[in-house]
Protein backbone atom coordinates (compact mmCIF):
# COMPACT_ATOMS: atom_id res chain seq x y z
CA UNK A 1 0.00 0.00 0.00
CA UNK A 2 1.51 3.33 -0.97
CA UNK A 3 -0.94 5.28 1.15
CA UNK A 4 -0.18 8.50 -0.69
CA UNK A 5 -3.31 10.05 0.68
CA UNK A 6 -1.75 10.36 4.09
CA UNK A 7 1.11 12.52 2.87
CA UNK A 8 0.54 16.19 3.12
CA UNK A 9 3.17 18.63 2.00
CA UNK A 10 5.41 19.58 4.87
CA UNK A 11 4.08 17.01 7.27
CA UNK A 12 5.14 13.47 7.59
CA UNK A 13 1.92 11.70 8.20
CA UNK A 14 3.39 8.37 7.28
CA UNK A 15 2.48 7.15 10.75
CA UNK A 16 0.24 4.48 9.37
CA UNK A 17 2.17 3.86 6.24
CA UNK A 18 4.65 1.16 5.38
CA UNK A 19 8.27 1.96 4.83
CA UNK A 20 8.76 2.77 1.12
CA UNK A 21 10.27 0.15 -1.16
CA UNK A 22 13.75 1.12 -2.27
CA UNK A 23 14.71 0.26 -5.84
CA UNK A 24 17.96 0.59 -7.72
CA UNK A 25 17.27 1.07 -11.41
CA UNK A 26 20.26 0.16 -13.53
CA UNK A 27 20.99 -0.18 -17.17
CA UNK A 28 24.42 -1.68 -16.94
CA UNK A 29 27.16 -2.44 -19.35
CA UNK A 30 26.32 -1.77 -22.89
CA UNK A 31 24.17 0.90 -24.40
CA UNK A 32 23.68 4.56 -23.63
CA UNK A 33 21.09 6.69 -22.01
CA UNK A 34 17.47 6.15 -22.76
CA UNK A 35 14.24 7.74 -21.77
CA UNK A 36 12.68 4.44 -20.90
CA UNK A 37 14.62 4.30 -17.67
CA UNK A 38 13.41 7.72 -16.65
CA UNK A 39 9.80 6.81 -17.39
CA UNK A 40 10.23 3.77 -15.17
CA UNK A 41 11.90 5.80 -12.45
CA UNK A 42 9.01 8.26 -12.33
CA UNK A 43 6.43 5.47 -12.38
CA UNK A 44 8.15 3.82 -9.42
CA UNK A 45 8.31 7.07 -7.53
CA UNK A 46 4.65 7.73 -8.20
CA UNK A 47 3.91 4.29 -6.84
CA UNK A 48 5.50 5.47 -3.59
CA UNK A 49 8.93 3.91 -4.03
CA UNK A 50 12.32 5.44 -3.34
CA UNK A 51 14.18 5.17 -6.61
CA UNK A 52 17.88 5.33 -7.29
CA UNK A 53 19.22 5.51 -10.78
CA UNK A 54 22.66 4.01 -11.17
CA UNK A 55 23.70 6.44 -13.90
CA UNK A 56 25.11 5.71 -17.29
CA UNK A 57 26.77 2.39 -17.96
CA UNK A 58 27.56 1.22 -14.47
CA UNK A 59 29.67 -1.92 -14.28
CA UNK A 60 28.14 -4.97 -12.56
CA UNK A 61 30.47 -4.27 -9.62
CA UNK A 62 29.16 -0.73 -9.32
CA UNK A 63 25.59 -1.96 -9.45
CA UNK A 64 26.18 -4.42 -6.63
CA UNK A 65 28.18 -1.94 -4.55
CA UNK A 66 25.49 0.67 -4.89
CA UNK A 67 22.77 -1.82 -4.03
CA UNK A 68 24.62 -2.80 -0.84
CA UNK A 69 25.50 0.72 0.30
CA UNK A 70 22.00 1.96 -0.34
CA UNK A 71 20.50 -1.19 1.15
CA UNK A 72 17.89 -1.47 -1.58
CA UNK A 73 15.15 -4.07 -1.64
CA UNK A 74 15.22 -4.60 -5.38
CA UNK A 75 17.66 -4.17 -8.24
CA UNK A 76 15.74 -3.56 -11.46
CA UNK A 77 17.94 -4.24 -14.47
CA UNK A 78 17.09 -2.96 -17.87
CA UNK A 79 18.80 -3.90 -21.08
CA UNK A 80 18.03 -3.21 -24.67
CA UNK A 81 20.25 -5.64 -26.48
CA UNK A 82 21.34 -9.21 -26.48
CA UNK A 83 24.15 -8.88 -23.97
CA UNK A 84 21.82 -9.21 -21.02
CA UNK A 85 22.59 -12.77 -20.13
CA UNK A 86 26.26 -12.16 -19.38
CA UNK A 87 25.62 -8.95 -17.49
CA UNK A 88 22.65 -10.26 -15.55
CA UNK A 89 24.57 -13.41 -14.68
CA UNK A 90 27.58 -11.40 -13.49
CA UNK A 91 25.41 -9.37 -11.15
CA UNK A 92 23.71 -12.37 -9.66
CA UNK A 93 27.11 -14.06 -9.20
CA UNK A 94 28.52 -11.02 -7.42
CA UNK A 95 25.56 -10.96 -5.08
CA UNK A 96 25.93 -14.62 -4.33
CA UNK A 97 29.67 -14.26 -3.75
CA UNK A 98 29.03 -11.56 -1.17
CA UNK A 99 26.45 -13.70 0.55
CA UNK A 100 23.53 -11.46 -0.24
CA UNK A 101 20.14 -13.11 -0.42
CA UNK A 102 17.99 -10.25 0.76
CA UNK A 103 18.09 -8.10 -2.35
CA UNK A 104 15.78 -9.24 -5.17
CA UNK A 105 16.78 -8.85 -8.81
CA UNK A 106 14.26 -8.26 -11.57
CA UNK A 107 14.89 -7.78 -15.27
CA UNK A 108 13.36 -6.16 -18.26
CA UNK A 109 14.10 -5.15 -21.83
CA UNK A 110 14.17 -7.02 -25.08
CA UNK A 111 14.72 -10.50 -23.79
CA UNK A 112 14.16 -13.47 -26.10
CA UNK A 113 11.62 -15.92 -24.69
CA UNK A 114 14.26 -18.64 -24.78
CA UNK A 115 16.43 -16.74 -22.30
CA UNK A 116 13.75 -16.16 -19.70
CA UNK A 117 14.02 -19.58 -18.05
CA UNK A 118 17.79 -19.11 -17.77
CA UNK A 119 17.28 -15.78 -16.06
CA UNK A 120 14.65 -17.20 -13.75
CA UNK A 121 17.15 -19.86 -12.79
CA UNK A 122 19.52 -17.11 -11.69
CA UNK A 123 16.72 -15.71 -9.58
CA UNK A 124 16.10 -12.85 -11.97
CA UNK A 125 12.34 -12.59 -12.44
CA UNK A 126 9.90 -10.45 -14.34
CA UNK A 127 11.89 -10.04 -17.53
CA UNK A 128 9.14 -8.03 -19.12
CA UNK A 129 9.38 -6.82 -22.66
CA UNK A 130 8.57 -3.40 -24.13
CA UNK A 131 4.92 -2.46 -23.90
CA UNK A 132 4.31 -4.19 -20.56
CA UNK A 133 1.89 -2.09 -18.49
CA UNK A 134 3.74 -0.14 -15.81
CA UNK A 135 1.32 -1.44 -13.19
CA UNK A 136 2.36 -5.03 -13.95
CA UNK A 137 5.99 -4.10 -13.36
CA UNK A 138 5.19 -2.14 -10.20
CA UNK A 139 3.18 -5.05 -8.81
CA UNK A 140 5.96 -7.50 -9.55
CA UNK A 141 8.58 -5.32 -7.87
CA UNK A 142 6.32 -4.87 -4.88
CA UNK A 143 5.93 -8.62 -4.51
CA UNK A 144 9.65 -9.30 -4.84
CA UNK A 145 10.46 -6.47 -2.44
CA UNK A 146 8.31 -7.93 0.28
CA UNK A 147 10.08 -11.30 -0.08
CA UNK A 148 13.44 -9.56 0.19
CA UNK A 149 12.23 -7.60 3.20
CA UNK A 150 11.19 -10.69 5.06
CA UNK A 151 14.71 -12.08 4.67
CA UNK A 152 16.28 -8.84 5.91
CA UNK A 153 14.37 -9.14 9.15
CA UNK A 154 15.80 -12.53 10.01
Amino acid at each position, binding site marked *: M*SGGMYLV*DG*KNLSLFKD*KPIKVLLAKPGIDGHDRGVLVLAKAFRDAGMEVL*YAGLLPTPEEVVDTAINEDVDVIALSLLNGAHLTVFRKISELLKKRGIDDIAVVGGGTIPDGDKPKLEKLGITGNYGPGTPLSTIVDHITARASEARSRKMQ
Partner: protein
Amino acid sequence: MKIQDIINGILNGDRRSIARAISIVEDDEMVIESSEVIKGIYNHTGRAHVIGITGPPGIGKSTMIGRLARILSDGNKKVSVIAVDASSPFSGGSLLGNRIRMQESLTENGIFMRSLANRGMNGGLSRSTWDAVKILDAAGNDYIIIETVGAGQADLDIVDLADTVIVVLGPGLGDEIQAIKAGIMEIGDIFVVNKMDRDGSFLAMKDIQDSLAMTPQKEWKVPVIGLDSLKGKGYDELVSEIMKHGEFNGSRPNIRLDRFMKEVEMALQAEIRRQYLLEARELLKSKDAIARFSGEKIDPYSAAMKILRSGKAGL
Protein backbone atom coordinates in the same frame (compact mmCIF):
# COMPACT_ATOMS: atom_id res chain seq x y z
CA MET B 1 21.13 -9.67 10.56
CA LYS B 2 21.17 -9.46 14.34
CA ILE B 3 21.63 -6.11 16.03
CA GLN B 4 24.82 -7.20 17.79
CA ASP B 5 26.31 -8.40 14.51
CA ILE B 6 25.39 -5.10 12.93
CA ILE B 7 27.07 -3.19 15.74
CA ASN B 8 30.25 -5.26 15.44
CA GLY B 9 30.13 -4.82 11.68
CA ILE B 10 29.87 -1.06 11.97
CA LEU B 11 32.87 -0.91 14.28
CA ASN B 12 34.81 -3.02 11.77
CA GLY B 13 33.80 -0.74 8.93
CA ASP B 14 31.76 -3.43 7.18
CA ARG B 15 29.64 -1.73 4.53
CA ARG B 16 26.73 -4.09 4.63
CA SER B 17 26.34 -3.60 8.36
CA ILE B 18 26.67 0.15 7.99
CA ALA B 19 24.09 0.15 5.21
CA ARG B 20 21.66 -2.02 7.16
CA ALA B 21 22.08 0.08 10.29
CA ILE B 22 21.20 3.21 8.35
CA SER B 23 18.04 1.49 7.08
CA ILE B 24 17.13 0.71 10.65
CA VAL B 25 17.51 4.27 11.88
CA GLU B 26 15.59 5.43 8.80
CA ASP B 27 12.63 3.27 9.70
CA ASP B 28 10.07 4.97 11.88
CA GLU B 29 8.86 1.64 13.13
CA MET B 30 12.26 0.61 14.43
CA VAL B 31 12.87 3.18 17.14
CA ILE B 32 13.84 0.48 19.63
CA GLU B 33 16.27 -1.22 17.28
CA SER B 34 17.67 2.20 16.36
CA SER B 35 18.36 3.03 19.95
CA GLU B 36 20.06 -0.37 20.42
CA VAL B 37 22.37 0.38 17.52
CA ILE B 38 23.21 3.87 18.72
CA LYS B 39 23.79 2.64 22.29
CA GLY B 40 26.14 0.01 20.98
CA ILE B 41 28.32 2.40 19.01
CA TYR B 42 28.06 5.63 20.94
CA ASN B 43 31.40 5.25 22.68
CA HIS B 44 33.09 5.13 19.31
CA THR B 45 31.63 8.37 18.01
CA GLY B 46 32.86 11.93 18.15
CA ARG B 47 35.91 11.72 15.97
CA ALA B 48 34.66 12.57 12.49
CA HIS B 49 34.65 16.05 11.03
CA VAL B 50 31.08 16.53 9.81
CA ILE B 51 30.71 18.86 6.85
CA GLY B 52 27.23 20.06 5.86
CA ILE B 53 26.69 21.36 2.36
CA THR B 54 23.53 23.24 1.57
CA GLY B 55 22.27 25.52 -1.16
CA PRO B 56 19.49 25.95 -3.70
CA PRO B 57 18.57 23.17 -6.14
CA GLY B 58 20.88 22.69 -9.09
CA ILE B 59 23.64 24.95 -7.78
CA GLY B 60 26.20 22.15 -8.04
CA LYS B 61 26.32 20.64 -4.55
CA SER B 62 26.64 17.03 -5.69
CA THR B 63 29.24 17.83 -8.32
CA MET B 64 31.19 19.71 -5.70
CA ILE B 65 30.94 16.89 -3.17
CA GLY B 66 32.19 14.44 -5.78
CA ARG B 67 35.39 16.46 -6.05
CA LEU B 68 35.71 17.37 -2.40
CA ALA B 69 35.25 13.80 -1.23
CA ARG B 70 38.00 12.63 -3.52
CA ILE B 71 40.42 15.31 -2.36
CA LEU B 72 39.66 14.68 1.30
CA SER B 73 40.15 10.95 0.87
CA ASP B 74 43.72 11.48 -0.33
CA GLY B 75 46.34 10.25 2.06
CA ASN B 76 44.34 7.35 3.43
CA LYS B 77 41.51 9.31 4.98
CA LYS B 78 38.11 7.69 5.17
CA VAL B 79 35.26 9.71 3.69
CA SER B 80 31.53 9.05 3.51
CA VAL B 81 28.70 11.02 1.98
CA ILE B 82 25.03 11.29 2.91
CA ALA B 83 22.68 13.04 0.51
CA VAL B 84 19.19 13.96 1.59
CA ASP B 85 16.49 14.23 -1.08
CA ALA B 86 12.91 15.37 -0.82
CA SER B 87 10.13 12.81 -0.92
CA SER B 88 7.18 13.48 -3.19
CA PRO B 89 4.41 14.99 -1.11
CA PHE B 90 1.91 13.09 -3.22
CA SER B 91 3.12 9.52 -3.43
CA GLY B 92 5.67 9.45 -0.65
CA GLY B 93 8.14 8.13 -3.19
CA SER B 94 11.26 9.90 -4.37
CA LEU B 95 13.92 10.03 -7.02
CA LEU B 96 17.25 9.94 -5.27
CA GLY B 97 19.31 11.69 -7.91
CA ASN B 98 22.43 12.96 -6.17
CA ARG B 99 24.44 9.84 -6.62
CA ILE B 100 24.78 10.18 -10.37
CA ARG B 101 26.87 13.34 -10.11
CA MET B 102 29.28 11.76 -7.68
CA GLN B 103 29.36 8.22 -8.97
CA GLU B 104 32.73 8.30 -10.64
CA SER B 105 34.70 9.50 -7.69
CA LEU B 106 32.83 7.17 -5.34
CA THR B 107 33.72 3.86 -6.87
CA GLU B 108 37.27 4.81 -7.78
CA ASN B 109 38.07 6.00 -4.29
CA GLY B 110 36.10 3.59 -2.17
CA ILE B 111 33.88 6.31 -0.80
CA PHE B 112 30.69 5.17 0.90
CA MET B 113 27.66 7.12 -0.21
CA ARG B 114 24.11 6.85 0.98
CA SER B 115 20.96 8.58 -0.23
CA LEU B 116 18.23 9.35 2.26
CA ALA B 117 14.72 10.48 1.42
CA ASN B 118 13.43 13.01 3.88
CA ARG B 119 10.09 11.17 3.96
CA GLY B 120 8.07 14.28 4.36
CA MET B 121 10.07 15.82 7.17
CA ASN B 122 10.28 19.43 6.19
CA GLY B 123 12.11 21.98 8.24
CA GLY B 124 15.39 20.22 8.37
CA LEU B 125 17.15 16.97 8.64
CA SER B 126 15.29 14.14 10.18
CA ARG B 127 16.46 12.21 13.18
CA SER B 128 17.63 9.45 10.88
CA THR B 129 20.28 11.71 9.39
CA TRP B 130 21.71 12.35 12.85
CA ASP B 131 21.84 8.67 13.58
CA ALA B 132 23.32 7.89 10.17
CA VAL B 133 26.12 10.34 10.95
CA LYS B 134 26.75 8.56 14.25
CA ILE B 135 26.96 5.24 12.46
CA LEU B 136 29.46 6.55 9.91
CA ASP B 137 31.42 8.24 12.67
CA ALA B 138 31.69 5.01 14.65
CA ALA B 139 32.72 3.21 11.46
CA GLY B 140 35.91 5.24 11.52
CA ASN B 141 35.28 7.96 8.98
CA ASP B 142 37.53 10.99 9.13
CA TYR B 143 35.09 13.11 7.15
CA ILE B 144 31.35 12.83 6.73
CA ILE B 145 29.83 15.08 4.10
CA ILE B 146 26.08 15.76 4.11
CA GLU B 147 24.21 17.26 1.17
CA THR B 148 20.86 18.87 1.84
CA VAL B 149 18.62 20.92 -0.37
CA GLY B 150 18.34 24.26 1.25
CA ALA B 151 16.78 27.39 -0.07
CA GLY B 152 16.00 29.32 3.02
CA GLN B 153 15.08 28.53 6.57
CA ALA B 154 14.01 25.00 5.80
CA ASP B 155 17.39 23.55 6.48
CA LEU B 156 18.54 25.19 9.64
CA ASP B 157 19.04 21.86 11.37
CA ILE B 158 22.26 21.41 9.47
CA VAL B 159 23.79 23.93 11.85
CA ASP B 160 23.24 21.65 14.80
CA LEU B 161 24.46 18.56 13.06
CA ALA B 162 27.49 19.71 11.11
CA ASP B 163 30.81 20.92 12.49
CA THR B 164 31.33 22.99 9.38
CA VAL B 165 28.45 24.37 7.31
CA ILE B 166 29.18 25.30 3.72
CA VAL B 167 26.54 27.36 1.94
CA VAL B 168 26.74 27.10 -1.83
CA LEU B 169 25.37 29.87 -4.01
CA GLY B 170 26.03 30.89 -7.56
CA PRO B 171 25.54 33.43 -10.29
CA GLY B 172 22.18 33.86 -11.96
CA LEU B 173 20.01 33.35 -8.91
CA GLY B 174 18.54 36.78 -9.62
CA ASP B 175 16.22 38.25 -7.01
CA GLU B 176 15.86 34.85 -5.53
CA ILE B 177 19.24 35.29 -3.91
CA GLN B 178 17.82 37.89 -1.52
CA ALA B 179 15.21 35.44 -0.25
CA ILE B 180 17.73 32.65 0.04
CA LYS B 181 20.20 34.85 1.83
CA ALA B 182 17.62 35.90 4.38
CA GLY B 183 17.53 32.36 5.65
CA ILE B 184 21.12 31.30 5.47
CA MET B 185 23.47 34.21 5.92
CA GLU B 186 23.96 33.32 9.58
CA ILE B 187 24.43 29.61 9.19
CA GLY B 188 27.40 29.43 6.83
CA ASP B 189 30.89 28.89 8.21
CA ILE B 190 32.13 29.00 4.65
CA PHE B 191 30.39 30.47 1.61
CA VAL B 192 30.98 29.11 -1.84
CA VAL B 193 30.09 30.71 -5.13
CA ASN B 194 29.99 27.80 -7.53
CA LYS B 195 29.97 28.05 -11.33
CA MET B 196 32.67 30.72 -11.41
CA ASP B 197 32.92 29.99 -15.14
CA ARG B 198 29.55 31.68 -15.57
CA ASP B 199 28.70 35.35 -16.06
CA GLY B 200 27.82 37.23 -12.93
CA SER B 201 29.82 35.05 -10.57
CA PHE B 202 32.08 37.87 -9.37
CA LEU B 203 29.02 39.98 -8.73
CA ALA B 204 27.55 37.15 -6.68
CA MET B 205 30.75 36.93 -4.64
CA LYS B 206 30.71 40.63 -3.96
CA ASP B 207 27.05 40.51 -3.03
CA ILE B 208 27.73 37.82 -0.44
CA GLN B 209 30.80 39.59 0.92
CA ASP B 210 28.75 42.76 1.35
CA SER B 211 25.99 40.92 3.18
CA LEU B 212 28.52 39.22 5.43
CA ALA B 213 30.07 42.58 6.24
CA MET B 214 26.69 43.66 7.59
CA THR B 215 26.14 40.66 9.84
CA PRO B 216 27.65 40.82 13.33
CA GLN B 217 31.31 39.80 13.43
CA LYS B 218 32.07 36.57 15.19
CA GLU B 219 35.29 34.89 16.22
CA TRP B 220 35.43 32.95 13.00
CA LYS B 221 35.94 35.03 9.89
CA VAL B 222 33.62 33.60 7.23
CA PRO B 223 35.40 33.22 3.90
CA VAL B 224 33.77 33.45 0.47
CA ILE B 225 35.34 31.08 -2.03
CA GLY B 226 34.80 30.89 -5.77
CA LEU B 227 34.71 27.44 -7.37
CA ASP B 228 34.51 26.08 -10.86
CA SER B 229 33.42 22.56 -10.13
CA LEU B 230 33.52 21.41 -13.71
CA LYS B 231 37.24 22.20 -13.95
CA GLY B 232 38.03 21.76 -10.29
CA LYS B 233 39.27 25.29 -9.68
CA GLY B 234 39.34 26.81 -6.21
CA TYR B 235 39.40 23.56 -4.28
CA ASP B 236 42.79 24.14 -2.60
CA GLU B 237 41.38 27.18 -0.89
CA LEU B 238 38.16 25.36 0.02
CA VAL B 239 39.99 22.45 1.60
CA SER B 240 42.33 24.73 3.50
CA GLU B 241 39.39 26.70 4.96
CA ILE B 242 37.63 23.47 5.93
CA MET B 243 40.75 22.35 7.81
CA LYS B 244 41.11 25.72 9.48
CA HIS B 245 37.51 25.63 10.59
CA GLY B 246 37.97 22.14 11.97
CA GLU B 247 40.80 23.43 14.16
CA PHE B 248 38.73 26.42 15.19
CA ASN B 249 35.97 24.06 16.35
CA GLY B 250 38.47 22.14 18.40
CA SER B 251 38.83 25.22 20.55
CA ARG B 252 35.11 25.39 21.32
CA PRO B 253 34.05 22.48 23.56
CA ASN B 254 30.57 24.01 23.96
CA ILE B 255 29.38 22.90 20.57
CA ARG B 256 29.50 19.27 21.66
CA LEU B 257 27.21 20.02 24.57
CA ASP B 258 24.81 21.99 22.38
CA ARG B 259 24.62 19.10 20.01
CA PHE B 260 24.05 16.63 22.79
CA MET B 261 21.13 18.71 24.07
CA LYS B 262 19.57 18.65 20.63
CA GLU B 263 20.06 14.91 20.41
CA VAL B 264 18.42 14.25 23.72
CA GLU B 265 15.49 16.39 22.62
CA MET B 266 15.14 14.39 19.42
CA ALA B 267 15.39 11.09 21.25
CA LEU B 268 12.62 12.23 23.58
CA GLN B 269 10.46 13.24 20.67
CA ALA B 270 11.05 9.91 18.97
CA GLU B 271 10.05 7.98 22.07
CA ILE B 272 6.96 10.05 22.70
CA ARG B 273 5.99 9.70 19.09
CA ARG B 274 6.45 5.95 19.25
CA GLN B 275 4.24 5.67 22.30
CA TYR B 276 1.69 7.92 20.71
CA LEU B 277 1.73 5.79 17.58
CA LEU B 278 1.03 2.60 19.46
CA GLU B 279 -1.72 4.23 21.42
CA ALA B 280 -3.34 5.97 18.47
CA ARG B 281 -3.34 2.77 16.51
CA GLU B 282 -5.00 0.91 19.35
CA LEU B 283 -7.56 3.65 19.86
CA LEU B 284 -8.50 3.70 16.20
CA LYS B 285 -8.98 -0.03 15.94
CA SER B 286 -12.73 -0.12 15.88
CA LYS B 287 -13.77 1.31 12.56
CA ASP B 288 -17.41 0.53 13.35
CA ALA B 289 -17.65 2.96 16.20
CA ILE B 290 -16.02 5.64 14.14
CA ALA B 291 -18.46 4.94 11.33
CA ARG B 292 -21.26 5.29 13.85
CA PHE B 293 -19.96 8.71 14.95
CA SER B 294 -19.96 9.70 11.34
CA GLY B 295 -23.53 8.53 10.90
CA GLU B 296 -24.61 10.46 13.98
CA LYS B 297 -22.89 13.57 12.65
CA ILE B 298 -20.67 13.82 15.68
CA ASP B 299 -17.83 16.24 14.97
CA PRO B 300 -14.27 14.85 14.95
CA TYR B 301 -13.20 16.67 18.12
CA SER B 302 -16.04 15.24 20.14
CA ALA B 303 -15.45 11.83 18.57
CA ALA B 304 -11.78 11.97 19.55
CA MET B 305 -12.70 12.91 23.13
CA LYS B 306 -15.23 10.08 23.38
CA ILE B 307 -12.63 7.62 22.13
CA LEU B 308 -10.00 8.89 24.53
CA ARG B 309 -12.35 8.76 27.51
CA SER B 310 -13.50 5.24 26.82
CA GLY B 311 -9.99 4.02 26.04
CA LYS B 312 -10.95 2.58 22.70
CA ALA B 313 -13.16 3.23 19.73
CA GLY B 314 -15.29 0.22 20.62
CA LEU B 315 -16.97 2.14 23.46
